[in-house]
């Protein structure tokens, strides 16, 4: 059935509602008029996104609506979606002004002359290109999203989409070529020179920098031609398709820079001659040169890497000396370390010799050497002096985990924290890096709680022990098998007697050792929000003690974490027992020390537990959450539908990775939302809080058999 196109009169009231024109006074008339000209299917698409973006910020939605008809003509749907998400992400990250400037650039963003372009979207290609660039030699570069293609020597920045060509394949090829050229800048010396100073002497430093970028593009493209001939063919093809070529005036430079030994010095030497020429028409795979970014990254890197390398060398020497101590008398210090870089055939390797004898550098040392080599073109001798005792503050040189409480007091409260996305159901998309999550330890409380609990539930503990012991699988011999290590003599005698009687002889004549392999890892996530204060908190703690007693019998690997938080900036996960901790007095004291904290923001906790569980080697992974009610957070949209939808999504994500989520809840009032929220998980409602300690263990038993 073909649905009718929406008219101007039908669209306007919709926009009035979503854009709240009563208060914002946006003129929706022209917007509605422009949209009424689209096909119904296109109208639905655009209106849906206007509604979703308005959920984030109304002004952004207005900007989107204004540009949508034009974008629809030029780009495919996925690219427009990506652009809409990019708008919202920029708003989340940097505020409304940054987002508006992205909106303003819509024209250049969709940098294309053709209609209906199939763009290569950053999110689709970043994974492949990230691995691609790791495969090439040199420093391990990250691939990140930004406004324009450039590199600072540690990361390669690509725009949100590449859409110069009508087809997605060609756009991907172009993105790959951009990555390769930026990689070549770090690998073949462009960033080694002081680019800003080199251009500062000219009347127009910006123009000089652009010309220098052009010279380097010529040099590095020729270099790529030698190192990666297949890619070079692609670049030529893309350039031909766009009608790009080498201007005649630049021909002599290109020839000069194509020499195998051409370096950044040659480009700098040619800059004087290139400066008077008009701006080089940029090639499609050419990025920008950003000397500021390069200098900043390099300044932060140099001292740190020098210290790291010297410390690592000292460690290497010490290990080497220990290994040799038994064989030879100790050689007097200082030892003579030499490093010979071998930069040939596209690969970069280092030969490390100690007093003339070769020593295999471990991976981390090799990576440091690579990075230093790329910065200097050699390994400066002062980098090879092993660090003396106490010469460096190890804490300053190697990244340290931040103390969660100290960090919160300062302004940089995202430093050292882990960031998790959150599902915004209004936007129907994730908010990237939305929750700032930190793991904290629970302060152990050594009181009588554990003893009292075990005494109070003595009967239950005995009962649980019996039931769990019955579950335990053990190594045992299985008789009458068709295959096995030994002959089952009883079976054989019977079989021979049968054969003697003329009956059929059984072939089940062997004994086989059955090996028990219960391979389960389970994570318990306990609600530590303020609302659990009192009865519920006591019941939770008792339940955990009984559970641990029973689990110790089974030998399943398990971890216990508590969650709480205030707003997305302060999401806290409390370590009670990690997978590696043994169930000892300290863990018991930590269970006793569980205290109600703040609010119930669940999504980040589920996502973090999913990650922890997936890092454990086990056949079956179970995630059990224990909570007292619906998700909630301080003065935040998390209360209500948003929180329910985010929790549901986090559970779905867990299930998608093969984890079995299970939820135990004490919420007695609002049962209506539970089936929806726990969609992917099985769940159970416990009415009587006092039942919790007995029920939890029993539920676990049924869940895992």
């Amino acid at each position, binding site marked *: 059935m073909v649905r009718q196109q929406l008219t101007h009169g039908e669209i306007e009231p919709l926009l009035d509602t979503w854009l709240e024109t009563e208060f914002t006074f946006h003129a929706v008339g022209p917007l509605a008029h422009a949209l009424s000209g689209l096909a119904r299917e296109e109208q639905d698409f655009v209106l849906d996104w206007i509604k979703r973006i308005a959920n984030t910020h109304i002004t952004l939605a207005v900007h989107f609506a204004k540009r949508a008809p034009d974008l629809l003509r030029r780009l495919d749907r996925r690219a427009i979606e990506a652009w809409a998400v990019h708008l919202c992400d920029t708003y989340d990250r940097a505020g409304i002004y940054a987002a508006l400037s992205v909106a303003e650039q819509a024209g250049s963003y969709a940098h294309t002359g053709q209609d209906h372009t199939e763009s290569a979207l950053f999110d689709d290609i970043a994974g492949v290109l990230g691995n*691609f660039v790791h495969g090439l030699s040199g420093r391990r570069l990250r691939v990140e999203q930004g406004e324009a293609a450039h590199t600072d020597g540690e990361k390669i920045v690509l725009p949100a989409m590449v859409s110069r060509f009508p087809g997605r394949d060609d756009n991907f090829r172009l993105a790959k070529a951009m990555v390769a050229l930026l990689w070549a800048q770090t690998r073949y010396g462009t960033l080694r020179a002081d680019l800003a100073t080199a251009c500062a002497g000219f009347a127009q430093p910006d123009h000089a920098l652009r010309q220098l970028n052009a010279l380097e593009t010529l040099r590095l493209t020729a270099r790529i031609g030698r190192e990666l001939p297949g890619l070079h063919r692609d670049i030529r093809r893309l350039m031909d398709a766009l009608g790009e070529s080498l201007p005649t005036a630049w021909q002599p430079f290109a020839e000069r820079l194509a020499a195998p030994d051409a370096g950044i010095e040659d480009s700098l030497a040619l800059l004087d001659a290139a400066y008077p020429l008009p701006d080089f028409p940029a090639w499609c795979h050419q990025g920008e040169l950003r000397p500021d970014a390069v200098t900043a990254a390099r300044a932060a890197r140099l001292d740190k890497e020098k210290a790291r390398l010297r410390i690592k060398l000292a460690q290497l020497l010490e290990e080497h000396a220990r290994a040799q101590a038994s064989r030879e008398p100790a050689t007097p210090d200082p030892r003579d370390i030499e490093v010979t870089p071998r930069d040939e*055939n596209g690969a970069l390797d280092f030969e490390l010799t100690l007093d003339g004898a070769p020593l295999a550098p471990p991976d981390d040392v090799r990576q440091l050497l690579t990075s230093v080599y790329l910065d200097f073109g050699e390994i400066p001798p002062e980098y090879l002096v092993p660090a003396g005792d106490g010469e460096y503050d190890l804490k300053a040189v190697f990244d340290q985990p931040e103390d969660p409480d100290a960090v919160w007091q300062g302004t940089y409260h995202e430093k050292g924290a882990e960031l998790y996305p959150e599902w915004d159901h209004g936007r129907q998309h994730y908010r990237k890096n939305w929750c700032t999550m930190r793991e904290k330890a629970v302060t152990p409380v050594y009181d009588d709680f554990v003893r009292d609990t075990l005494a109070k539930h003595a009967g239950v503990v005995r009962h649980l022990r019996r039931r769990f012991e019955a579950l335990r699988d053990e190594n045992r011999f299985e008789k009458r098998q068709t295959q096995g290590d030994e002959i089952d003599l009883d079976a054989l005698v019977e079989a021979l007697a049968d054969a003697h009687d003329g009956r059929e002889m059984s072939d089940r004549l062997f004994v086989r050792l059955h090996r028990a392999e219960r391979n389960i890892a389970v994570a318990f996530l306990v609600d530590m929000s303020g609302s659990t204060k009192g009865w519920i908190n006591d019941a939770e703690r008792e339940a955990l003690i009984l559970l641990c007693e029973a689990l110790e019998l089974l030998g399943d690997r398990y971890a216990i974490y508590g969650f709480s938080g205030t707003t997305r900036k302060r999401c806290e996960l409390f370590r009670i027992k990690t997978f590696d901790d043994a169930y000892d007095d300290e863990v018991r004291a930590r269970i006793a020390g569980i205290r109600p904290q703040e609010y119930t923001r669940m999504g980040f906790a589920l996502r973090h537990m999913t990650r922890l569980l997936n890092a454990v080697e086990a056949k079956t992974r179970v995630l059990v959450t224990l909570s007292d009610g619906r998700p909630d957070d301080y003065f935040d949209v998390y209360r209500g539908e948003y929180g329910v939808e985010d929790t549901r999504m986090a559970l779905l994500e867990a299930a998608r990775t093969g984890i079995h989520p299970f939820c135990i809840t004490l919420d007695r009032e609002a049962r209506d939302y539970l089936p929806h929220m726990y969609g992917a998980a099985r769940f159970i409602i416990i009415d009587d809080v006092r039942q919790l300690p007995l029920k939890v263990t029993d539920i676990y038993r049924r869940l895992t058999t």
Partner: protein
Amino acid sequence: MTAHTLTPESHFIDREPYYETVGDEIAIFEAAYRNRLPVLLKGPTGCGKTRFMEHMAWRLKRPLITVSCHDDLTASDLVGRYLVKGGETVWVDGPLTRAVRCGGICYLDEIVEARKDTMVVIHPLADDRRELPMEKLGQLLQAPEEFCLAISYNPGYQSVLKDLKQSTRQRFVALEFDYPAAELERRIVANESGVDAAMAEKLVKFAQMTRNLKGSGLEEGASTRLLVHAGKLIASSVDPVVACRSAVAQAVTDDADMLAAIQELSSSLF
């Protein structure tokens, strides 16, 4: 066309298997053999451990009996067991016992895959006693001078569950293998697969790229063996990019993103 059936005892290697010496591994192995010491070969998959064993078996003119270990391999599978034949029980020697009896070279490949209790049966063979207790027979088999025990493992798979016990590893003379240096690897690839020197050089460069990916989601880079496979396909006029995809990329990973990245690397190179 008929396939040859060989008994383990008659598995002598007559033609010299192609092997490029990397260091002094041949001299060390021969010295260990003369002194009746067992040998442990360490190294990543496909770097030439098995080929080295074949080469040594040819050099020493002893039959080579290889057992590929797996996690269901029991001691009986190595030593032997009783079977029922026509109403009677008959003892059948396992491969390890047969190797001891005929004074061959027993090579236990990927020993860490075997269960720990299985590994223990080789202990008396691997020290100066050089004997194999066969409990079920009530016999003790004394190994002849020619017998040699060699095991291999890959320290790359660093799972705590699969590590070689100290009591096992400290009985062996260890030889470490790694992918050969670029120059040597080029020669090996050219020699084994029949591609020209230029193509061999590109293949080695490609292998280096995949080895750079180790740690970015790839468990192991491309081994020399895979390069030889790719080279053989190319020598049979398969397009190099296609050959690298089939022989290398698909062999090292199933991950779609990683496959695409490796594909991009090879298409950049050829």
